[in-house]
């Protein structure tokens, strides 16, 4: 069932490619705005790069959360999912994973190119990409809770950012921290282990919270 739902959401994303591209371009534009606002001084940009890329990834992932459930909600397919004999936990997990594949993975792939704009050395580029690979699924999983809670509310988009961004902070800290640690010559193993631990906690806990939130919102 997990695969069914992932397949379905990927198929839907294929048919609506503009949505995927919008998120990606948003990410690129935000990252490119920073040198224009703080100046093109390369040394400064190099130290700021991990933070900027991570914040932009956070915002891009958050902006696309609205799509996770709202179109299913509007056409009634979400109702059918709640009435499925399959476990809602798995359905929700599948939807979050599909969201990550559609929005998170393109960001991860784009990150090294943006890092080059900021003159990051090769190993920092690698750590940045790896930290995003590990961190962005957490963003999708936590974001799913916010998306489910704000389903069908007016001003849901702004509200979801209020709910979700504070919860993203640990991922931000350790994600960009890993790159800084590696640039400073310190190990980044601890950061990655912690991100991995967060991911496990998020996989175990967030679909459950999302499933209850969906039931609450659909009542």
């Amino acid at each position: 069932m997990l695969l069914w739902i992932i397949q379905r959401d990927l198929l839907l994303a294929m048919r609506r490619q503009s949505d995927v591209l919008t998120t990606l371009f948003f990410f690129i534009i935000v990252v490119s705005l920073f040198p224009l606002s703080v100046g093109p001084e390369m040394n400064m940009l190099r130290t700021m790069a991990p933070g900027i890329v991570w914040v932009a990834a956070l915002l891009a992932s958050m902006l696309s959360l609205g799509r996770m459930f709202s179109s299913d909600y509007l056409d009634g397919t979400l109702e059918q999912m709640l009435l499925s004999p399959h476990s809602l936990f798995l359905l929700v997990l599948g939807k979050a994973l599909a969201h990550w594949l559609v929005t998170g993975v393109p960001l991860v792939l784009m990150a090294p190119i943006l890092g080059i704009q900021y003159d990051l050395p090769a190993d920092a580029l690698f750590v940045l990409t790896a930290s995003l690979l590990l961190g962005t699924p957490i963003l999708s999983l936590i974001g799913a809770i916010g998306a489910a809670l704000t389903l069908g509310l007016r001003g849901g988009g702004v509200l979801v950012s209020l709910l979700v961004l504070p919860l993203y902070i640990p991922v931000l800290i350790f994600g960009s921290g890993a790159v800084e640690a590696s640039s400073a010559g310190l190990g980044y193993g601890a950061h990655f282990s912690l991100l991995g631990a967060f991911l496990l906690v998020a996989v175990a806990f967030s679909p459950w919270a999302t499933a209850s939130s969906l039931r609450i919102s659909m009542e």
Partner: protein
Amino acid sequence: MLRGNDLVCVRGDRRLFEDVNFFLDAGGIMRVSGPNGSGKTSLLRMLCGLSLPAHGEISWRGTAIRSLGGEYYNEVTYLGHLAGVKDELTAIENLRISSALAGAEIGEDKAREVLQYVGLGGRELLPVKVLSQGQKKRVALARLLVSSTALWILDEPLVALDTSAIKMIKDLLEQHLAQGGMVVMTTHQEIDIAAATIQQLQLA
């Protein structure tokens, strides 16, 4: 089989209905009627377990549906106001996905056959968004043909359908009832369905 006991529905400050009692047995059909805003859809959503009654209990085969969970959904098919079909997907994809969700996976050939039956032959591969309202409804109704559930809960299944489709639904429901299935439905249209027991539930 399906029993409602002292059901009360509250929406915001308003009490939509209270003291709703019924018992539906195998082969029986219950038509829920009442003016707009009398809580027909709310009642059907309660029967599906999508929302909880403010008071009272719904039970299925003697067990409260709240404690049944997934088991109950193996035996229920709900067609709501919203068609539950994705505009971007084709009729075949929609049907295959929705039946997989409902726990009855079907192959492409079977899906084609069913769509042929509901009168969408030759349109199976078009994205649903180019179909008319009535054709969309047929895609949704096609789910009933592949379902093996006992209880069908249908919210206005006849809206937007032409006479040939209504005839098809009538046959489908009669066949389902004859096999010991159960139907709870709302409709504003006149339709005669032969069944072992026919009940009318009037909401004020």
